[in-house]
């Protein structure tokens, strides 16, 4: 479970272009569920996601991961928490061009210094699960949108994180691929992963895998809708 208490994020603090992207957010995100942040453009969804995912530190407020305070950790330890806890799927996939699919999937594990053969077999297993093993050697710039996203999912899973975070995952996908993505989310949920997605795509927001919808506006939460209450 992730708990946020009075969390704010200010960009360009003290300068003329100061922006309050997130203001006084208090929220609990349950583990093992699918949570969606929705809201108009500029409402602070992505910013909130970076705070939850330990990509940035809140300017004010506290964030707890399973009861442990993570928001005031120095960057070094925040990274430690991030790489064992969170896997990311970005809107623009953010694969590294010029490297092969396999290398892209393995990259998050490099700083941990694992055994190469063990790492490679783990990566190949993931690619096989996502039906991409035949493209392992291919450079990522030649992949289609759907394939790119599946590589990004494989990369997010390589360190076996408990949480998967996806920012606007379907913005660049057609309906068929969006459905396929939802399918993958369902499978991940079945394996016990917790998932957080930002989206203003109704295909996602209204999907039946979603357990909770958090609605945002101007950096604040204006509504929380819980479904599939168990």
């Amino acid at each position, binding site marked *: 479970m992730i708990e946020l208490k009075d969390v704010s994020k200010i960009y360009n603090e003290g300068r003329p272009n100061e922006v309050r992207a997130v203001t006084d957010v208090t929220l609990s995100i349950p583990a093992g569920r699918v949570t969606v942040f929705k809201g108009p453009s500029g409402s602070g969804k*992505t910013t909130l*996601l*970076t705070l939850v995912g330990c*990509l*940035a530190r809140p300017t004010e407020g506290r964030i707890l991961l399973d009861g442990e305070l993570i928001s005031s950790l120095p*960057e*070094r330890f925040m*990274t*430690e928490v*991030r*790489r064992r806890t969170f896997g*990311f799927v*970005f*809107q*623009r996939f*953010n*694969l*590294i*061009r*010029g*490297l092969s699919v396999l*290398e892209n999937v393995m*990259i*998050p*594990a*490099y*700083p*941990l*210094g*694992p*055994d*190469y053969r063990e790492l490679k077999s783990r990566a190949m297993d993931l690619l096989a699960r996502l039906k991409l093993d035949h493209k392992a050697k291919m450079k990522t710039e030649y992949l289609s949108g759907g394939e790119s996203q599946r590589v990004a999912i494989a*990369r*997010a899973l390589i*360190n076996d994180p408990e949480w998967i975070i996806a*920012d606007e995952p379907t913005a660049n996908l057609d309906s068929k691929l969006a459905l396929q993505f939802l399918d993958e989310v369902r499978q991940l949920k079945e394996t016990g992963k917790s998932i957080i997605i930002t989206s203003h795509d109704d295909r996602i927001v209204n999907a039946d895998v979603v357990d909770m919808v958090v609605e945002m506006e101007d950096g604040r939460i204006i509504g929380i809708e819980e479904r599939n209450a168990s």
Partner: protein
Amino acid sequence: MRHWLARQRYLVDFTLAALLRRKGRNLMLLFIYTLVIFILASVIFFGSALRHEAKAVLKGAPEVTVQNLVMGRHAMAPPEWVEKLKKVRGARRIEGRLWGYFYDKANGANYTVMVPSRYDRKNALKDGETIIGAGLARVRDVRRIGHLFLLSPKGKLMKLKVKRILPETSELVSADLVLMSRGDFLRFFDLPENGGYTDIAMQVRNRNEVAKIVEKISKMLPTARVITREDVLRTYENVFSWREGVVLAMLSAALVAFAIFAFDKASGLSAEERREIGILKAVGWETSDILAMKLWEGGLVSLFAFIFGVAAAYAHVFLFDAGVLAPVLKGWSVLYPQFSLTPQVDRLQLATLAFVTVIPFTAATLVPIWKAAITDPDVVMR
């Protein structure tokens, strides 16, 4: 430890791949870096090889030389001095030497004319014979004629049969040498039979006594100037270091320019590269991982540039006789250009070279590398 090693290996792999992915830019950097190292290494190698030559030549030189001074200027040493010096204990092989310089109007070169030492059996000469240095042989085209014609300072023509030409290899100082018999020498310079010697040379039985012997001679012959081989060596060492140093100092200007170039390259991260670093950080790399990777990058570029630059400089100096640099560093008579240097590279030179190239490069790239490494991971979300 195992993880640490594995991590370094992954970082190196990734770095090499990254270097290759941006071939154009990195090759450019490598090329300029190599060029800088090549020039500096050439200067250092060449300087030290010259110093080495000089030392080798001086090895055969007498340990102590005694000159006569009249009114503070060099004058012929009287013949009696030789007998007097023979009484100094610890000195041996005392010998008056005859040598001088001669300006050849025919081709504007300076020769060293010398009577070979009595102890130098190999170069013993009869009247009418000569042994000459290779440089001179080349200039005068002796190889075909077999005779050397010299116009003495007083205008008399002298014809000498060339007995031998001194080998060209590694004898910087012998290039302009003309050896002739004592009789010929006196006749050539029009000197009286008993006019004395240019200087008096001697060896010393025990090297530790040199100082004592010098003191004794100075007492016995108050007008004499006594020069030891160590003095000469020291002067040489100074002069060479100084020349080399001046060239190096000038080159450091080039080095600064290079550092600025490197800084520019390192800090001008392309948008794509920034994004790449953002991705790495977002997926779990830490600032120190990026720093380590970038340091590896700099280290590998330095290493390659160093190896290529040093190898090229080695070839340049020792295989191609420092064609590019020789005129600057030697700055001597026209007779010298053709000789081969004995390959001569030591740890100190390499260490010096590494210091003066790698330190500026590292200093110049450190801040840009750090700036890149602290890229916020959330940039990839935008």
